[in-house]
């Protein structure tokens, strides 16, 4: 049997409602955060996938062929090479033409992505 007064009951209900509202807000905020993290992850994977056609899915190139594996390559090294292709400092048959289509930020993003692959 509930021995609380009407006022007490109302306070308790109001507290529950406030708590629910707070949790809802917190939930939505974390959902939004999770969504933006997931969106970013999907975009990075899709951007890196533009390299996969020649360098293998997630940078794991077919072994024993002339095109190199990017998976697990240190990000700094990959980025340095990509930028050297882009300036023409490192000679290439094709990579100087490809890298000129990507911004510095995009090259950093793919370099980081492949470094994180095994």
């Amino acid at each position: 049997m509930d021995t609380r007064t009407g006022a007490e009951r109302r306070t308790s209900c109001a507290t529950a409602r406030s708590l629910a509202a707070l949790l809802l807000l917190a939930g939505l905020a974390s959902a939004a955060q999770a969504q933006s993290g997931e969106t970013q992850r999907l975009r990075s994977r899709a951007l890196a996938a533009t390299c996969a056609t020649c360098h293998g899915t997630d940078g794991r190139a077919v072994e024993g062929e002339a095109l190199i594996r990017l998976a697990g390559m240190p990000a700094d090294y990959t980025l340095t090479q990509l930028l050297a292709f882009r300036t023409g400092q490192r000679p290439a048959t094709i990579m100087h033409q490809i890298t000129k289509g990507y911004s510095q930020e995009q090259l950093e993003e793919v370099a980081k992505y492949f470094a994180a692959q095994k």
Partner: protein
Amino acid sequence: MLDRRQVLERLFLGGATGGMLASLSGCASTGSASRAQVVVVGGGFGGATVSKYIRLLSDHSIDVMMIEPNAQFVSCPMSNLVIGGQRQIADITNPYTGLSSKHGVRIVQDRVSSVDPAKRTVALAGGGTVAYDKLVISPGIDMMWDSVQGLQEANAAGQILHAWKAGADTLALRRQLESMRDGGTYAIVIPEAPYRCPPGPYERASVVAAYFKRAKPKSKVLILDGNPDVTSKGPLFKKAWSELYPGMVEYRAQHKAVAVDARTNTVKFDVQDDVRADVLNVLPSMRAGELAVQTGLANANARWCHVNFLNFESTVQKNIHVIGDAIQVAAGMPKSGHMANSHAKVTAAAIVAELKGLEINPHPMLTNVCMSFVDDAHVIHVASVHEYVPTQKTFRTIGGSGGVSDVRSDLEGRYAQAWARNIWADALM
């Protein structure tokens, strides 16, 4: 944008907070909502790649069924080397089994007879229907037989081939060249652009010339082009023909074929004189694969399919995406296997985003590389990078990027071999 159900699902996945919210709000659990099903029609460079990448990019949370009539993937890129005798058909053939065993794609070996966009189902030629949330059609090209009178019959009889879909015809054309006398003429007839694989006909002429130089040196290669000039890598091809095959390869522009005479193995043109050849290889005009046309998706001149370039959704039907050679291309976008692979990845990411309630990438990118052999070992390339431009709602090649080879080289020959092995693996393994 997230809808309410998706917000709730997300909160449930997030743990205790969601559970409490659900009990307070009195909402029933939606945690067991059925999984989204994507159906992919066609297992070429576009279809196989989009199947694999929807599985990968969704962390295997979206079911994918791929419907393809062929038991194995026979690659059009590198198939000219089978025609030239530099490779065997086994070298360009790969199984589909990796898609099912490694990536969980359900493969149905059948043909789709029709699509019902209102009910969101496809009917299989072998019987039964399959429901989809999203349908991706990657139907490749079909031939416009009426563009060259008499060709369909001559092709069906096995006499005048196109061999523009790799497989049995690739081998049949090879046999025709093998049985041709030394001193004979091989003629390839090219339709007006756009057609599948812009540099393909010129590569084929080159590797056939390499075969003749080795085995039948008195023979000729005649290129009869419906276009005003070589449509891809022109200066590089012409340099290769004059330096590697002097007096053997002849290029004639402005030769638009209108008919063939199978009795005399002759091709007729709208303006130019008839040409007779010992081996006649005629490519008619091409359009989107039959299924796309019959579904009413070919809304560009009743030939190619207009798509929304952000997600490759048909501009005719919601929830039906078209990729690969069948689409009405953006400027500078070739109909190639590499480009179909690029379409597939943008489409896979967009479908995964949409089905998960995430915002679709407003700035997708595409790349293309076409590598052509000019003899047994030397290759020339054309490359491009494309970005989506929101204000124009289409892809544009990025200024300063892309280009062609400086010179033909055996280094690029090794890269071409590696490219093929990698793009096959990227689609299938």
